[in-house]
């Protein structure tokens, strides 16, 4: 945000973006629900239309916020609101990934061993799933999706981990540069971060293609569903983060941030670190341990 000078808490008049956002979100969710529930060949256009409205809303709303910030309409109280908003946003993100990691740990450490006869699950194993060993990774005793192979963690996941870690190094260099007001350095390292994020996504798509060739699909029981949900939603966050950094890069080029006033930059940089840590967790718990 730019200079904070006003004593009054800035309240915009005739804000039209909240209602546009509501319409967009409703259209997206209703479209997605129809797509999932319909047994006939339902086209996904309603969902796409909703997503388009959401994108228009985001560009419009965020653009207005940036403009108001640069006009110096925000005082320190508004600044506090932005920071509190960031905390709640991150809290929701943490809970979101905690759900999927929780599902992974529960299946892996508790329910799969029970089906295999561990602990009090002995009769479950002998009576219901006799012969099932309950060893992770598994598609369960029902053998959903058929025989599958696991991706080699030394290949694409390793490359992707190196790419994301490098991108966090580049954004940290940019962060140090913005604090000493070195605009050119900031732009170069931010652009490098976006590029590394894009390469990561390219390899992620390549990994999914390889997985399907190994018959590891979204249908492959508990391993397939946890694997694709965790890595898929993570990929979505990388894409979003890269778009956010690209916009921040343009803002830096326009001279928007100052060493003592760069919350927009800092929030995006932190978000990128968060996405990187989630990947590190995935690499450790999904691929390695």
């Amino acid at each position: 945000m730019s200079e904070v000078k006003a004593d009054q808490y800035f309240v915009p008049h005739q804000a039209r973006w909240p209602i546009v956002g509501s319409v967009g979100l409703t259209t997206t969710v209703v479209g997605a629900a129809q797509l999932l529930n319909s047994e006939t060949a339902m086209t996904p256009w309603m969902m796409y239309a909703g997503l388009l409205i959401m994108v228009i809303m985001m560009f419009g709303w965020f653009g207005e916020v940036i403009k108001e910030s640069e006009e110096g309409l925000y005082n320190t109280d508004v600044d506090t609101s932005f920071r509190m908003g960031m905390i709640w946003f991150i809290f929701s993100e943490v809970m979101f990934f905690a759900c999927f990691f929780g599902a992974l740990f529960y299946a892996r450490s508790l329910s799969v061993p029970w089906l295999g006869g561990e602990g009090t699950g002995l009769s479950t194993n002998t009576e219901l799933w006799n012969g099932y060993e309950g060893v992770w990774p598994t598609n369960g005793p029902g053998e959903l999706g058929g025989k599958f192979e696991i991706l080699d963690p030394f290949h694409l996941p390793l490359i992707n981990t190196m790419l994301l870690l490098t991108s966090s190094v580049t954004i940290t260099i940019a962060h140090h540069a913005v604090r000493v007001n070195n605009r050119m350095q900031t732009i170069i390292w931010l652009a490098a971060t976006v590029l590394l994020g894009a390469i990561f996504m390219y390899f992620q798509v390549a990994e999914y293609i390889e997985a399907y060739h190994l018959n590891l699909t979204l249908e492959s029981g508990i391993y397939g569903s946890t694997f694709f949900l965790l890595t898929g939603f993570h990929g979505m966050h990388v894409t979003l983060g890269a778009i956010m950094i690209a916009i921040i890069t343009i803002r830096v080029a326009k001279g928007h941030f100052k060493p003592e006033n760069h919350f927009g930059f800092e929030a995006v940089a932190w978000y990128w670190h968060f996405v990187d840590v989630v990947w590190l967790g995935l690499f450790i718990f999904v691929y390695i341990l």
Partner: protein
Amino acid sequence: MKYLIIVAFLFILFSLGQALFYMVKGKGKSQNTVRFLTVRIIASVVLFIFILLAMKMGWVVPHGTKMVPG
């Protein structure tokens, strides 16, 4: 060896959390956010190199290299 990796990962989470705390509390004036984020990335790189070493030395065997009976 597994537990060492998990403890290191928890330390990385702690550094990330500290950076968030100072981002909200420091109001942009504090150097602590960038400092903890720097600690976070250094720790992550070290952990990554350690995992590579652990796999090479056979201290940790990744599960993703065997065929799954289906």
